[in-house]
């Protein structure tokens, strides 16, 4: 039986594990922390703008499992906030344990607190992954989904230092780039000012530290927009953000809070003193990252070159997904690319042609579009998401943005891909 080894248990890794398992592989998932879904533990926004389309496409392609979880753990459905429509907010305290049970029930072998530090390679093939205790996990095909965040030295050199984010490098050790260990150079995202990487775009406030009025509004409506005092408005800050879909003027003039169990603050970081000047936030404190008053994690420093089937160029048996596979932002983007990589890992082991999604699907187009853009200097400064900025514009103008579930299904059945991820290949 084909043994697929996945490195990194974020959304991309979890999605890859499920689709590789469904295609018939024996699957081992290696995660350096004690939690699955990685940055998904601090996100929560789903189905906003073009993500709705991508979600329904992935479901119609035969991989509904993780979206069923995020839908069922939703605190709010179909809400609006500046620039964003029909969003679902999942409860970050509910999702991880649900995903964990799902993966275990599917018979996926998960290794927690197991950090990959190196590879064993023969010619252009990876044989095994070396863990920090020097044990080796051997496999036939490997999928790298280690994300692109940190570690500490990078967050310091290209940001404001370790902010103690959910990935907890000081406790569990740093991320590494498996593809680089395999001899493939990383591609690095840039900012407008040419510096490397980008700050994560939001933090979380502890809900109990907010005024009763704000808490009530959040619980009821999911959104609270609070005016920032004139002297503290800083438009320049929008440039450093990862999430260009939220780099709007509204987000500079207002504090936008979203209810994801905690109060998600749509700013990379915000000095506590200034924050507490805002009505209702007099006692506010950060829940994630702990030093959200000073810094946030730095991302996009480790992208592997790949083809549109998610196979890493230059290594025979390595695929990638999520932030590792491009300048992608988002849970939906990680799940969609992860699902494809997992499915293709089994095809690769069988020597049959890999699946490439057609460009008349939003998922197929983003995978190909991000690949075209990443080879340009300007493209390295952009981020790709169904939820906003350039790619959402593109979805709208090319007619890819569809919110009718039945129509999406019909479209996928026309290209003969309905339920493709459900096919057991071995």
């Amino acid at each position, binding site marked *: 039986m084909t043994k697929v080894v996945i490195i990194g248990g974020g959304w991309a890794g979890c999605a890859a594990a499920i689709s590789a398992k469904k295609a018939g592989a024996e699957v081992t998932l290696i995660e350096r922390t004690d939690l699955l879904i990685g940055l998904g533990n601090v996100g929560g926004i789903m189905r906003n703008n073009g993500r709705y389309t991508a979600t329904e496409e992935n479901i119609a392609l035969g991989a509904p499992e993780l979206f069923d979880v995020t839908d069922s753990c939703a605190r709010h459905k179909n809400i609006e906030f500046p620039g964003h429509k029909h969003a679902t907010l999942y409860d970050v305290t509910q999702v991880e344990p649900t995903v964990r049970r799902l993966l275990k029930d599917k018979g996926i072998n998960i290794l927690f607190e197991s*950090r990959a*530090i*190196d*590879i*064993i*390679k023969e010619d252009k093939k990876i044989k095994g992954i*070396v863990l*920090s205790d020097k044990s080796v996990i051997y496999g036939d095909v490997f999928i790298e989904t280690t994300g692109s965040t*940190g*570690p*500490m*030295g*990078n967050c*310091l*050199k290209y940001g404001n*230092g*370790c902010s103690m984010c959910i990935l907890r*490098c*000081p406790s569990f*050790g*740093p991320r*590494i780039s498996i593809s*680089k*260990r395999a001899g493939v150079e*990383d591609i690095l995202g840039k900012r407008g000012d040419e510096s*490397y990487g980008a700050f994560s775009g939001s933090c979380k406030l502890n809900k109990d530290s907010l005024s009763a009025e704000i808490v009530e509004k959040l619980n009821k409506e999911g959104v609270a927009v609070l005016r920032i005092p004139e002297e503290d408005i800083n438009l320049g800050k929008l440039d450093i953000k990862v999430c260009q879909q939220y780099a709007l003027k509204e987000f500079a003039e207002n504090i936008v809070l979203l209810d994801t169990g905690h109060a998600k603050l749509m700013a990379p970081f915000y000095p506590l003193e200034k924050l507490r000047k805002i009505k209702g936030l007099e006692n506010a404190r950060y829940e994630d990252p702990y030093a959200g008053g000073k810094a946030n994690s730095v991302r996009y*420093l*480790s992208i592997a070159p790949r083809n549109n089937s998610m196979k890493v160029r230059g290594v025979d048996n390595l695929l990638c997904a999520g932030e590792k596979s491009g300048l992608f932002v988002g849970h939906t983007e990680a799940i969609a690319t992860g699902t494809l990589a997992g499915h293709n890992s089994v095809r690769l082991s069988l020597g049959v042609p890999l699946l490439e999604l057609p460009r008349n699907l939003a998922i197929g187009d983003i995978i190909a579009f991000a690949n075209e853009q990443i080879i340009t200097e300007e493209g390295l400064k952009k981020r790709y998401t169904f939820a906003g900025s350039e790619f959402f514009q593109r979805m709208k103008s090319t007619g890819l943005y569809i919110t009718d579930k039945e129509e999406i299904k019909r479209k996928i059945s026309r290209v003969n891909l309905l339920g493709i991820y459900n096919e057991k290949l071995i």
Partner: protein
Amino acid sequence: MKYRLECVDAGSEYCPCYLAETNNCITCSHLQGKQFCDCEWRGTCIYQEYVNNGYQKTYQREDIPVQVEKRESIGSNCMMLKIKVSKTLARQLKEPGAYVFLRGTDLPHYFDVPMSIMEADDSNGYIYISYQTLGAKTKKLDEDRSEFLLRGPYWNGLYGLKSLKKVSEDNCLVIARGIAQAPAILVIKKLIKNRNKVIFVVDKGVVGEIFIEDLIDGLDIRIIEEDVQSENGKFLIKNILRNEDIGLVYSGGSDVLHASVINMIDQVGVNPNIVITNNNEICCGEGICGGCTIRLSNGVRAKTCKTQLEARKVIERRVFDD
């Protein structure tokens, strides 16, 4: 697989050091002049410490004057010293692999000689050291001095510290020969503390005496005295390896002894963790002078005064080179 080096000082109060300032850090890729993180993680971010400290090294070890409380001749050409130090220093030195530099107060710094700690008494502030008089540096220690300059603590006297600290409730074989009886004491005590069963094979070696009897008296270990390089000794060690389900082997002695112990392990076909004494000529102890550099068989150069290496890798290159 690429070999990333682990500095024994990483994360200690002496890190970052001069090597960070000169972009020669053993562990951190940023402090080697590279652009991105790529380190053998030691539980701490050296770059963060460096930046937080204003792009400077931290406080570094200095020479301090210390008094000799007792000097005792032990066997041929060997001496034991009891030295008064602060309780803090004694505590820092109460670790397997700990060593200090000693020299006469009137001598230039190149007389500094590295000395393994045999025993440290942290409630009263004493350390015990044994040495064999060999060359210029040790001969200069012999004169009837009551005061020395001491620099420390240093920790890289053993390779395999990680497995030594980790092993618990297991069977361990400790082999020590000659003057290397001294550093074996802290090893044995560490192993006992972690509820291991210890078999101690001790060999007088050229010292001609078992000088640590007092220090191991009353410890719950099995002691066997034997010439470990003799046919009898080898037979004994192989028997232990074969029958006692040994999880860790410690070899204290020359590289020839290390090579022979590793050889026996391979002949018996067992796979215990291996810890050995670091026998390289250590000069500055700070990774600066380069006197201790060795070349591993994969071409990697390592400064052994600070770098933790795998026992097999160290010995392998010895066999290659010598």
